[in-house]
């Protein structure tokens, strides 16, 4: 299983930059957004506002406008929503520039443990996405809003978030990937 590629961390695919450089640039981007628009980096708020659009056909417009959460965070093309769009476009531009766009349905690390079945991976990704966003909204932010923006401001909430998330992630990874590559 230690063939050569998949889990070897030192292998830098095309277009990868040093994590220290990327971290420093993200830090500098934080200076910019604080100074220029006074809005910290954040991603999960616009995703949850966008969810109201998807829920509208099912739940009905009235239920959406009556909902206390979406009254507080309604869908609009505001700074946060455009930042979300920008994140997608920036990654797309970067991946096209480095010419490593590649369709992936079952990633290597997952396949090593659970096999290559899409019927397993896709529901798991959906469930993971559901849990992560429910958690992000309950915590009031995600890896961007709490993890980077909040932690760098020395916010207590954000450090509690960061450390708890990491701890539970390690425990979850232990149980999920225990036993290595037993299935193929």
């Amino acid at each position, binding site marked *: 299983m230690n063939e050569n590629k998949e889990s070897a961390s030192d292998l830098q695919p095309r277009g990868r930059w040093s994590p220290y450089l990327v971290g420093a640039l993200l830090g500098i981007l934080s200076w910019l957004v604080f100074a220029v628009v*006074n809005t910290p980096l954040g991603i999960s708020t616009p*995703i949850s506002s966008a*969810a109201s659009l998807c829920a509208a056909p099912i739940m009905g417009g009235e239920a959406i406008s009556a909902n206390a959460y979406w009254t507080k965070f309604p869908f609009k093309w505001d700074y946060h929503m455009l930042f979300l769009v920008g994140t997608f476009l920036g990654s797309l531009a970067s991946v096209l520039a480095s010419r490593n766009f590649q369709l992936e349905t079952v990633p290597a690390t997952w396949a090593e443990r659970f096999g290559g079945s899409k019927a397993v991976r896709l529901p798991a990704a959906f469930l*993971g996405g559901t849990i992560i966003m429910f958690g992000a909204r309950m915590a009031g932010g995600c890896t961007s809003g709490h993890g980077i923006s909040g932690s760098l401001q020395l916010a207590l909430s954000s450090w509690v978030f960061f450390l708890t998330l990491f701890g539970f992630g390690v425990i979850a990874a232990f149980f999920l990937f225990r036993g290595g590559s037993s299935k193929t």
Partner: protein
Amino acid sequence: MTLPITGETARWLAIPFGMLFGALLHRGGVADYNVIVNQFRFRDFTVLKIMLTAIVVGGLGVWMLHGAGYAQYQIKPANLLGVGLGAALFGIGMVLYGYCPGTGVAAIATGSLHALVGFAGMLAGAVLYALSYPWVEKHIQVVAALGKVRLPEITGIPEWGWFAILSAIAAGVFWLLERKTKPGAAAVS
């Protein structure tokens, strides 16, 4: 021109700022499922290196900007039960999904179809939270609610002290990682 820029101009600046963010996530390798999951398995430390560097570099700059009057802190409230439970779910979800919300969006652009399916899951999770919001606000977010507090206030250690501590931790961790992972990374497993 006075800072901060507000209104319509600020809104459109979100696109270039977002693009820088997305491009950096991709260049850093964190739009890759394997990189994220293997951080939690201690087999790849890219995520930790990026996060710690961003926090120290970003924090020092924002602290100085704040001191000079060019930035305002925006602190999220420390509702410790809500933050703790939410973060625990977030950690579990992150291992299952293999991305966080930001890196998931960046990953969709790189061709990750399971990131796209997980994005639909995120929308579903947001709907579930919106539906449970009144109950959660009433019963969970009020427990151990300390308000918008920062570490310097509650510990008495001043900001420069915290940044000294964080810089020392980061330097120590990076030194250990660079020393350890170079020769025999594969031998660990």
